[in-house]
């Protein structure tokens, strides 16, 4: 299975890229898996950022309120959303 992770705002700079694609042959990815993958394949700072409650998580365009119980399926798009600054 494969999931895509999109980094928004300054998390793009933290990750050093606008998005990543992770694939796994060992079934679905859960939240601790994702944090681990980010830590090992991107960097520590992104793994920390994804756990910081000030940064929100969306899966397939839906904001998630309980990130720690998430389980990702093949084709999911996970967005990491730092605090907004629009207008």
């Amino acid at each position, binding site marked *: 299975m494969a999931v895509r992770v999109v980094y928004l705002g300054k998390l793009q700079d933290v990750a050093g890229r606008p998005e990543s694609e992770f694939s796994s042959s060992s079934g679905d990815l859960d939240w601790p898996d994702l944090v681990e993958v980010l830590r090992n394949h991107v960097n520590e700072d992104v793994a920390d950022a994804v756990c910081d409650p000030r940064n929100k998580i969306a899966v397939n365009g839906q904001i998630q309120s309980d990130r720690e119980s998430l389980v990702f399926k093949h084709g999911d798009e996970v967005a990491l*959303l730092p605090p907004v600054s629009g207008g």
Partner: protein
Amino acid sequence: MATRWRCCRRSAVARLAIAEPLDVRLLDKGFSVGEALAGFNAAHGAAGGVVSFLGKVRPDGDVKALELTHYEPLTLPGMQELAEAAFARFGLDGALVWHRVGVMTPGESIVLVATAARHRRDAFAAVDFLMDHLKSASWLWKRERRDDGWHWIEPREDDRKDLARWQ
């Protein structure tokens, strides 16, 4: 000659179609504020009052450019929900909520909000509400290019306070 211009202008104004009651757009190019407001105004001929806010990139110190990033699956749907909330809360006749994304230079328009209502106070309050939410509760991220490169803009405490007024 004067007559010819008049003819062009009238027709031009009539050509810009504004969705009713809500016209919500995320724009990746500049837009004509005059045409947008003329179109909005024409679409809401029976409203007693129309209030608008236009926000532009300020030529601030060494700021050379500003970039607004959005996230396709969230940003426009969120703006649409916001417009619907304002519409219901203030009993509006209509609202226009346009936001630029991409790279802009000083003097360029970033955001245009307009509301039409029977009474002035409702139209005012609705624009205020929409702007507070666009600034601190919409899925948009801003960075500035200064002499030493790009800098992400952090959310400001004042913006959060402005938002709290509506809760």
